[in-house]
């Protein structure tokens, strides 16, 4: 499946170019003729949706930088200048701010799709692990971007997140001062966050390239979770999946546009319109919604270092998922028990998100603790055991049999 197709270009200029630099045959082999399982459902369109969101974020971000000023005294004003004075500034800024949120909506669906259909299993471990790195870099990028308007929530979000590193004994304090470039979050912090916020999306683009490369070595997983066995199992990527992806992208962008145009501040916090004040912490600080499950885990543990370790572990554990899941069967379609635990995990993650938005006391604290415990039990106990306990349902012999039934295949 790898390598470029042996296609001979009829156009002499195309052939001349391709013999010297085979870009055309790579495009032909990887984006046009690429054999793709014929049974992919709409959950598989989120890869294309994510690529689209990355491009939207890059384009809007690059033009926003032409008007933004990374200085504590001017950052907030320059954002308002974008909103009020710059031609189409309001649109570009709302596209960028809501684009981040929709980027996360798509990445969470994409990841849960991977969990449901066992897309992390052999031979796609590296593909999955690059994906986890992409997710972590995305979170760092989004966090630093949220700091740039330099409002109260920006500032105190930066304080709380950078202080996570102070939990480590001895090295914690020097690390935090190194991150800040001072004794508190200040102008040096804002400027370096701006620099990194501009850099990381390009790192993301490079990681996405590796992600797609790894995908094109192993080929797509599919809803049946069976590897491709013959030509009958696949369709060329174009036009079958270019068009399917495009349709899904258009539908996804309609939801996105609804927020950009009709409710652009729905996911924001009004306190961020107040300029950053290092002397006063707002009553109730919360991160953006896409960080809430992790924030809930951080607060669920009654020890500072413990909370930080648990929160980071919840991400690190994903790297080991290909080996924690002991079942040979990929798709949960054929794993009745694992399927129930999957939906329980979805509920647990949503519950963590809600708990993260509430003050960390009383019943919500208890809920957050139970949900955090279950998150780890799921990956460390349930998944390894299920492979031995569960009896999978009978599986079709091939993808074409799964699609067409036994007789036709």
């Amino acid at each position: 499946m790898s390598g470029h197709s042996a296609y001979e270009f009829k156009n002499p200029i195309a052939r001349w170019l391709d013999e010297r630099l085979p870009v055309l045959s790579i495009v032909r082999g990887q984006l046009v003729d690429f054999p793709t399982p014929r049974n992919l459902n709409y959950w598989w369109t989120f890869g294309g949706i994510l690529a689209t969101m990355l491009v939207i974020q890059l384009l809007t971000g690059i033009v926003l930088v032409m008007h933004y000023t990374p200085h504590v005294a001017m950052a907030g004003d320059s954002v308002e200048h974008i909103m009020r004075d710059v031609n189409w500034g309001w649109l570009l800024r709302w596209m960028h701010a809501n684009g981040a949120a929709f980027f996360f909506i798509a990445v969470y669906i994409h990841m849960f799709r991977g969990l449901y259909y066992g897309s992390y299993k052999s031979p796609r471990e590296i593909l999955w692990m690059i994906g986890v790195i992409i997710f972590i870099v995305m979170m760092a990028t989004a966090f630093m971007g949220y700091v740039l308007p330099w409002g109260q929530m920006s500032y105190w979000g930066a304080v709380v997140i950078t202080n996570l590193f102070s939990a480590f004994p001895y090295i914690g304090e020097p690390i935090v001062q190194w991150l800040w470039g001072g004794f508190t979050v200040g102008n040096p912090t804002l400027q370096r966050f701006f620099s990194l916020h501009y850099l990381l999306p390009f790192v993301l683009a490079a990681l996405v390239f590796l992600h797609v490369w790894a995908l094109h070595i192993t080929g797509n997983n599919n809803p049946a979770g069976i590897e491709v066995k013959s030509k009958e199992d696949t369709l060329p990527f174009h036009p079958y999946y270019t068009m399917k992806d495009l349709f899904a992208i258009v539908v996804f962008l309609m939801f996105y546009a609804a927020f950009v145009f009709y409710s652009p501040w729905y996911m924001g916090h009004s306190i961020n319109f107040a300029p950053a004040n290092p002397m006063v912490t707002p009553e109730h600080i919360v991160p953006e919604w896409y960080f809430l499950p992790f924030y809930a885990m951080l607060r669920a543990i009654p020890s500072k270092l413990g909370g930080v370790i648990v929160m980071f572990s919840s991400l690190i554990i994903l790297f080991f998922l290909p080996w924690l899941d002991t079942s040979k069967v990929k798709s949960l379609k054929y794993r009745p028990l694992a399927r129930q635990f999957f939906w329980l995990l979805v509920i647990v993650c949503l519950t963590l998100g809600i708990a993260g938005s509430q003050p960390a006391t009383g019943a919500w604290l208890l809920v957050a603790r139970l949900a955090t415990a279950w998150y780890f039990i799921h990956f460390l106990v349930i998944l390894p055991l299920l492979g031995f306990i569960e009896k999978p349902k009978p599986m079709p012999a091939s993808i074409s049999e799964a699609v067409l039934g036994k007789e036709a295949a």
Partner: protein
Amino acid sequence: MTSTVENAGASRRDFLYIATGTVGAAGTALALWPFIDQMNPDASVLALASTEFDMAPLEEGQGVTIKWRGKPVFIRHRTKKEIEEARKTPLADLKDPVARNLNLPPDAKATDENRVKDANGKVNEKYLVQIGICTHLGCVPLGESGDYDGWFCPCHGSHYDSAGRIRKGPAPRNLDIPPYKYTTDTQIVIG
């Protein structure tokens, strides 16, 4: 004897190979340092290091927040009740038994007296001077609140008592006491 000559040649080549590699690696590592160290606090940040404050105008029960090194510093003229409560608290009840007073040795006990001692050992228990940053994740706690007549951090629910010592919640340490000394009976220099 040809084999010895061959070995000698090979080992000399190995040596050059390893030596070149080592110099290259060490040089790259050294060249990396300026790129890392540029992120540390710069000279202009380090220069803003000390602040003076006169506590005489503070009434009993009144507190102010001033800025030192860009950080909030709480200065409070404590009431008799607050002092009494802080003194009566047995050390065994404290989550963090160490004073966290930068003017004292790092193992000084978290008695009320040790929380109000300056760099010269002068004690004026009326005035409590501390860095107003929660030792959990760096929020600024609210004064005159919490379960222990002291400070309460709204971010993640840490309670500090009337001597700024952590009593309940996720914060690991008592509020830090900055380095300071009295220049008169009420005037202090922080830093």
